[in-house]
């Protein structure tokens, strides 16, 4: 413990260049977060698919929504990095 000023913070700014992880595509991530939480909407048996009640197959379908949206956002970030 010394009474030197904390120089490390300022030096860190030199370490990494200023960047941003903001991207309009990020909003897409809300879809797979909100959908699976709307339980009353999908807590039903009909319509069935291959003998599966709606409640079960739709939640597996949400997995696909999650994969697609996160992949799209990842791509957008990659493009942003190059551009």
């Amino acid at each position, binding site marked *: 413990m010394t009474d030197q000023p*904390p120089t490390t913070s300022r030096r860190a700014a030199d370490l990494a260049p200023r960047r941003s*992880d903001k991207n309009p595509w990020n909003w897409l991530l809300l879809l797979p977060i909100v959908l699976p939480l709307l339980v009353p909407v999908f807590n039903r048996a009909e319509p069935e698919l291959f003998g599966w009640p709606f409640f079960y197959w739709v939640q*597996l379908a949400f997995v696909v929504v999650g994969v697609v949206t996160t992949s799209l956002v990842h791509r957008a970030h990659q493009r942003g990095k190059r551009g």
Partner: protein
Amino acid sequence: MEGINTVELAVFIAFFVVVTALGFGAARWRRAENLMHLDEWGLGGRSFGTWITWFLIGGDIYTAYTFVAVPALVFGAGAAGFFAVPYTVVVYPLIFLVVIRLWSVSHVRGFVTPADFVRSRFDSPTMALLVAITGIVATMPYIALQLVGIEAVLKTMGVTGELPIIVAFVILAVYTYSSGLRAPALIAFVKDILIYLTIIVAVIVIPTKLGGWDVVFGAAEEKFSLSGTGGLLLPGTGQVQYATLALGSALALFLYPHSITGVLAAKSRGTLQKNMSLLPIYSLALGFIALLGFMAIAAGTEPIGADNNTIVPALFQQMFPSWFAGVAFAAVGIGALVPAAIMSIAAANLFTRNIYKEYLKKDATPTQEAKVAKLASLVVKLGAVAAIIFIDPQFSIDLQLIGGVIILQTLPSVGIGLYTRWFHRGALVAGWVVGMVAGFLMLYSVQRVGPDGTVVKEHFAGSAFSLSKLGFDTTTTVYAGFLAVAANLLVVVLVTFVLRAMKVDDGVDGTADTDYTAEREDPSVRDLPDPLGETPTTAGEGSGRG
């Protein structure tokens, strides 16, 4: 269950031997110059690419206990047990932008644990200690539960007694000691190939044998309407619990030290982002695994010795030829070893960095740190074995339930702290205390009532807290952890206002804004000559100490 099924056991042991060889060989895999550094032993050199990270985090999150307990829950309660699917859908988009910030700041500052981050960000050794203790306490019962997974499989094969579990864990402890994080990363490959093979075969073969999916769901519906508990759909009062449990568990998942270990071991931000979109493939598998519970109902499978956790192994034994049942059992058994290894490494890292180095030996060299961490990982695993042998396994299950609730209480400091430093360090401590107490009291009050109205289990009988206990006129239940972290956040915000108004010193941020978006190619603190002339590698924690 007369005696031991030798074919199953032979296949199981054969896989176990292969995995043990891999575990020891892992020390040589992607060899580092020096394993005696925590970055190497505890984080695999921070070098794992997309595939290894996928297997590692997958092995971390989807554990043997998951494979055994989720279908057991679905078998017993129906729809409510399916929460594991929305939970693992919500988690990846939720943390997509968060974990990459954690990765970046840890890369620049050389953090190994979440508590390292809190220490530097909020300039608060107290909060860091609380985060470390919370992490260790939440992880320990999780490790013990992995043993419950192995036990379920052994029981089904007719192997009884504690000796086999002790042997398995001693072997695990020894190769984790020598190979560090590289061992579970390598073994995770075997585990997942076996798991996916088992699931694909099970999902095709079992419903076909039973007469189709409608027969499976039909049998489940009949059972639930007869017994009067559970159901194919959620009761109206259980919907909020379902959603809050999914969301609360998702928020908790990446606060667990073992998940963070998996994240920090990745080599770049891109690796992690790619993984956030690839990891849900496990959730798809988990959905099918959950439905094994209904298949067991349709097949008339009986759990062994009234232990619902044996339902999936018992179903496999009933449906598959012995040799393939052996493969499936090996999948579950190895599925226990991978997370147990990562969890013990994560707990060891926390102990070493945030207790040993912080309080016991401030000038510890990297070699000493690695040595202590290796020993700590042994102690943690022995503790888990002891817990299973000497204490009722139910106690571990209760503890793990509490674990999920208490780890959530690190959300303001570890999670939200990645975005803002507005919270005052004193307020974070106050919020943590309130959240812990509230969560514990709520869980303590949860009872299980049997169909005849008598209380079957007095305390800790689940995480569904009835809002009526707070005076609300409703039968709705909510996930206790969710309410606890809400109370925590409220206190953090209020106390921050108060402390700021009183102008109480809130320390110095040891991180810079640009740290949070740093890429792999950017230099880290340890590339710089040490400014204060301390021991060469402590620049990371030296920061922020004004």
